[in-house]
């Protein structure tokens, strides 16, 4: 078995054999279930077996548009877009500090700080906002003791505000890391040259840095948006009464064993997300960011 195709000069079959276990997992556990879901979303519910039968129908897609379900789609997309916008606006200055304004050693530490949240419990981090934003939380206590308000501010928790704040805090790294990666590709001489020619910081930032990091900003926005579309725990823990999201809607529909409807919602979401990524990738060449990964 050749482990390094390039060195041994005969790539092809060994590469395939090495890739086989992971391909089996991704196809068997990922692709096959999603493809079956897409097919089954076109079958009809069978009340005799509490399962579906192969009678083709578009009924579930019709039901998708009823009972305010399309509103849940729009609400989820709206909150995700707002989250992605806020995250990107915060991420650009943060990534600029890492990429331009600080020493490499400190930049490494900062990148680590933006990496750690990926591997800690999102559930706990969302839950922690309840302590901070509640009627007797830190924020309300501070506002009252400074005399800003007399009674606790109600809309801080169990509101769209809390959901967006929780999601921004959770998914900010998705926006920061791509921009940091783009910064590593900027030629320092470009910045130095503009300094030599007399450009001030803001001129450099807006005329040179911002256009160069644009692909990272778009990628970051997209990642936050996609992840925020799929999440449910922030809405469940921080959202107001009756707040819903696409994922919560799927859970609810499954609770009443309406399989075709759950499958059709899932199918629509997966197709939309894939389309979004493909279109963004075709219109903006993002590839230069990662050219030397793993080579």
């Amino acid at each position, binding site marked *: *078995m*050749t*482990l*390094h*195709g390039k060195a041994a000069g005969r790539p092809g079959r060994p590469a*395939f054999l*090495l*890739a*086989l276990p992971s391909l089996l997992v*991704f196809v068997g*556990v*990922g692709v096959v279930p*999603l493809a079956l*879901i897409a097919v089954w979303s076109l079958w009809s519910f069978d009340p005799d077996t509490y399962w579906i039968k192969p009678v083709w129908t578009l009924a579930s897609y019709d039901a998708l548009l009823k009972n305010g379900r399309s509103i849940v789609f729009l609400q989820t997309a709206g909150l995700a877009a707002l989250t992605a916008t806020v995250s990107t606006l*915060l991420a650009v*200055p943060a990534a*600029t*500090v890492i990429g331009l*304004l600080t*020493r490499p050693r400190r930049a*490494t530490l900062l990148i*680590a*700080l*933006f*990496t750690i949240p990926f*591997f*800690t*419990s999102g*559930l*706990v981090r969302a*839950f922690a*906002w309840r*302590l901070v934003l509640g009627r007797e939380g*830190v924020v309300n206590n501070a506002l009252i003791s400074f005399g800003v308000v007399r009674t606790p501010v109600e809309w801080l928790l169990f509101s769209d505000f809390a959901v967006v704040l929780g999601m921004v*805090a959770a998914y*900010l790294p*998705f926006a920061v*890391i791509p921009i940091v*990666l783009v910064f*590593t590709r900027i030629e*320092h001489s470009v910045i130095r040259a503009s300094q030599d020619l007399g450009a*001030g*910081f*803001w001129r450099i930032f807006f005329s040179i840095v911002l256009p160069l990091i644009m692909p990272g900003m778009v990628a970051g926005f997209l*990642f936050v948006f996609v992840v925020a*579309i*799929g999440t449910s*725990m922030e809405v*469940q823990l921080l959202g107001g009464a009756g707040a819903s999201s696409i*994922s919560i809607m799927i859970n609810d529909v499954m609770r009443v064993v309406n399989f075709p409807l759950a499958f059709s919602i899932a199918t629509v*979401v*997966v197709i939309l*997300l894939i389309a979004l990524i493909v279109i963004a990738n075709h219109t903006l*060449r*993002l*590839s230069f960011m*990662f050219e030397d*990964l*793993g*080579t």
Partner: protein
Amino acid sequence: LTLEPIITSRTNGGRPLFTAIMALCLAIMYAPSLYLLLASLNPGEQLGLVAPSRYSLTWYVALMNDHRLFGALEESAIVGFATAVLATPIGLLAALAYRAMTRTRNLFFLFILSAMFVPGTIEGLGLSVVLKLVHVRPSWFTVMIGHLLWALPFAVTVLLIGLSAVKTNTVAAARDLGAGPFRAFVDITLPLMRGSLVSSFIFAFLLSLNEHARAYYLVGRQNTLPLYMFGAMNSGASPTIYAFSGAILVVSFAAVALVLFAAPRRQDGHRAESLRRDHDNAFYQFSVGSSRGAGTISAAANR
């Protein structure tokens, strides 16, 4: 990398403004968790901070009597360990495959990383229905299958970056000296990748330990930790839930800190300054690359 910031001159307020925004980012990412951690040390019934002299582990001790918690903990530990044990070697093979590939590598990588983009609820739903059809009873095993799909893209990304530190020249030298491909792999490639193998294992374990949406659909009779916690969080707050959350946070932070800080430092203890700089560079790449964002763009982009 130079040792100085790229822009050292005056910034007309840019530096303080941007630094303040970055501090705000870190604050909203970390402050609530740290607050929860401190509040969990409050021995009283109501929440809030107390003076450090009154800190107490009362609620952590109370956790010891929660038998359902230990059931969930055991389940999550089994699932997480099995996920990490499978994800690391499969991820290693995938990373080696990526290196051996030529034209197909970007497509392959895109395929692997696309699993990150599918909402967990949908992956869990699809997998649970399929497993039911083939008569696999829900258990720790079904949860582990779902978590494997979730952890594998991270494992592959971390291991790819680890593999990129193994220069092809080094392996070629071993081959010139008469080592077979397997011997070169075991004696050269594997030892050089030790750090990223450990990282991949720990990350896979943590991702599994904290995963909620997939487990919701795949779990058997015994809840996993996040499912149990979610129930406790929504059913009237007993202060033990804060101790519980605090314990999870401490374990996760400690494990990630171990990977990010302890492992690299141990390695460069006996190296020259020039090498240390190289190493900083590698660590920088590692930190960047081990995030989801890193691989995903490359995947979405390289096709």
